[in-house]
């Protein structure tokens, strides 16, 4: 054991192993941070959420840091909510009726981007008894043009999508009001006019105590650190939650398969005879069973088997009698003949004592590198299953992001961030473990040391 630790200290001489360990540590910290800030149930709720959770996010927006590299700065999402005091509210009693009021909500904002927003929506909420208030919206550009937007009654909660107002699009002579409203009228090609814009929401109420609140959202072309997907979800949630899942899946699967395989190989070699024969035969049968198709079958046929933890169990169960048994067996066969084992037998050590205390420790130098190098295999296995549509149905994982992106044609449509971010993370984690495992292999297997 001591010599094992001593040789492990040689890892300092391998720069790639150091890089690997640093990356793994960083990933573990990120995973812990994720679990602490977004609990498991919250992650599921967020990832399954629809417009109610992600309503203020643009669809298919790239990450906001794109702007650092773009010459033409693209807008990020602008949300102004009168509840948060983002609008100046004026209330005037109407001359016609004592109950009626005119409420004006004035949103003022600066627009300094070189691109147009993706979509414009005004959300209105009104509290009233019977007669809904009536809203009319006005738009004022920096060059003092005033454009009349829609007019409509405000039921309890009203969503006014500018692009869907056919009267507005006809008036603007453009199918894309988000372009027409921001465009410089003197420019040949549509370029946004920079400056201060105003949106006035004018509401005429018919009852006393009627109150109106409005939210103005100009959806950007870019959003957050990681961008969004086709369902407006912030990819950051999935990228962050992918970390603990990839790490735990990879580590647990590698540990589970290596330990069980090693134990079975040790038992087989130690008892020999029919026990060994049976283990050998089962291993051969297991080699004929194609692992990936069986995992696909488990995922497809048993819908409750979609959970990542069931798949994890199936992976371990299928590799208990995996091909690694043959490697371990060959080493155990050598160790079994060693004099100290004979000595242990002579003083009357029990079978379990010999297996756990004398046989298994001798195989650690071979086992540890193969365990560490095994982690990326399982990290990528999870992604592979997700790519086949067999990912965990509720949890966001890196593989599922790639699968979603592929299904939505992200590569065709140029939404490269959607594929690249999870892929790079997968790559980084996989490489980190592979580099450490690789160095460990060279340290612990003396035959390779000089090579």
């Amino acid at each position, binding site marked *: 054991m001591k010599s094992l630790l001593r040789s492990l200290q040689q890892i300092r001489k391998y720069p790639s192993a150091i890089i690997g360990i640093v990356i793994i540590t960083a990933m573990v910290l990120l995973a812990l941070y994720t679990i602490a800030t977004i609990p498991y149930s919250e992650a599921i709720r967020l990832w399954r959420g629809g417009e109610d959770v992600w309503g203020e996010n643009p669809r298919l927006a790239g990450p906001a840091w794109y702007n650092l590299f773009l010459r033409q700065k693209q807008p990020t999402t602008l949300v102004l909510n009168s509840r948060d005091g983002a609008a100046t509210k004026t209330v005037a009693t109407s001359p016609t009726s004592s109950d009626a009021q005119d409420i004006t909500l004035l949103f003022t904002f600066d627009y300094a981007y070189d691109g147009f927003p993706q979509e414009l929506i005004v959300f209105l909420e009104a509290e009233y008894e019977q007669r809904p208030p009536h809203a009319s919206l006005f738009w004022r550009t920096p060059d003092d043009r005033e454009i009349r937007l829609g007019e409509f009654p405000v039921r309890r909660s009203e969503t006014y999508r500018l692009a869907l107002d056919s009267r507005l699009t006809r008036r603007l002579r453009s199918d894309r009001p988000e372009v027409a409203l921001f465009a410089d009228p003197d420019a040949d090609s549509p370029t946004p006019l920079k400056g201060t814009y105003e949106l006035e929401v004018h509401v005429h109420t018919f009852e006393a105590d009627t109150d109106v609140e409005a939210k103005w959202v100009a959806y950007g072309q870019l959003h957050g650190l990681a961008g969004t997907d086709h369902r407006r979800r912030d990819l950051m949630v999935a990228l962050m939650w992918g970390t603990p899942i990839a790490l735990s899946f990879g580590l647990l699967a590698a540990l589970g398969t290596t330990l069980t395989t090693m134990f079975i190989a040790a038992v087989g070699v130690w008892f020999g005879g029919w026990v060994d024969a049976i283990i050998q035969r089962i291993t051969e049968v297991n080699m004929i069973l194609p692992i990936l198709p069986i995992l696909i079958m488990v995922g497809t046929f048993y819908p409750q088997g979609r959970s990542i933890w069931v798949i994890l169990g199936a992976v371990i169960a299928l590799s208990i009698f995996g091909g690694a048994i043959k490697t371990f067996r060959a080493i155990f066969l050598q160790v079994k003949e060693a004099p100290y084992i004979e000595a242990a037998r002579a003083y009357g050590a029990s079978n379990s004592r010999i297996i756990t205390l004398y046989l298994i420790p001798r195989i650690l130098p071979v086992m540890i590198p193969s365990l560490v190098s095994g982690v990326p295999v399982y990290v990528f296995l999870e992604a*592979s299953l997700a*790519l086949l549509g067999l990912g965990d149905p509720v949890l966001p994982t890196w593989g599922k992001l790639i699968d979603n992106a592929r299904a939505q044609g992200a590569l065709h449509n140029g939404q490269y961030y959607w594929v690249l971010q999870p892929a790079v993370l997968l790559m980084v984690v996989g490489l980190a473990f592979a580099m450490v495992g690789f160095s460990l292999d060279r340290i612990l297997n003396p035959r390779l040391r000089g090579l």
Partner: protein
Amino acid sequence: MAEATQTADTTSPTKIMAAGYSRTVGRVAKYTLIRTVALLATVVVGIYLTILVANMGGHVDEIRRGQIRERVAIGVSMNPDMRQLPTAERTKMINEMVRVEEQRLGLDQPFIIRSFRFLTDALTLNLGRAQHISSDSGSRTVRLIILERLSPTLLLMATSNLLLFGLSVFFALYLSRKYGSLMDRLVIALSPLSSAPAWFYGIFLLLLFAAVLGWLPFGGMVKAPPPASRVEYGVSVLRHLTLPVLAWLISGIFSGVYGWRTFFLIFSSEDYVEMAKAKGLSSREIERSYILRPTLPNIITSFALLLIGLWQGAIILETVFNWPGLGRLLYSAIQLYDTPVIVGSTVLYAYLLALTVFLLDFIYALVDPRVRVGS
């Protein structure tokens, strides 16, 4: 085969040789028999397990019964003659039709009995008819479906694997000569790259060459509609083949070269190689007779394992590149609960694996005089 089992000391007198020869034949025969029985048993158990899983232990039958009942009920309610019948009579009619249909499909027997019939059918390569999938020519015969998908898979996998194998061994030999050079250290440093599967690099390649540069197609085997002229067809297939093969190579080459290089290096530090060097033999000679010769069994093993891999195809690589091969067939069969196709592909794979393992034992003895069959 028997010749191969002769031991290295063939200088003994002819009489002893003859006696040894007949002993050898006996031993080989016994060994062959035992190996055949063991491998067959393995194949049988493996296929039976696949049948159980692919039928979900009989649950697929329940699904199919449900489908039959639904289809019959809809058929009856759509039929104006039958719609007039009183409810009791109509129910009786539906039950009767369901019973006939189930009998036709053999669903009336318990699953355990049928599972053994499936097993014998599978083992005798009587693969039956698919439930949902049909071949491009419209046939439902599993054998035809598999045969049709076999050639694209072989094209893709054989090209990628043979290239990978050849390049790995070639570069490994080269590097083992240049041991410690910059190139050598570069390959060692890059070998962790092989921890990612081929489809993963496939996505990067698609992004670069198909999406950004637009040089190569996104997927498929030939452009649609297929070109009429042979040459154009070949060029089109070649263009579609490039990216998946490249992905396979990137994911395999570094660890492949590293593995072989280390292996060759271990062998080139043997005493007899030093001896050959001392004798002044050319490096080509040393490589051929003193390094490649003793490593031949290992080269053959890995080549055989590679051949087994060919047959199964790469499910995900084929899915990512939309390649119409066996891997994607298996995947879509699983998605459609098409048990005969699933079992059919597994049977094919199991037989090929068993055959390869069986042949390997003998090929070993052929190339390595130290190995004696059955000893």
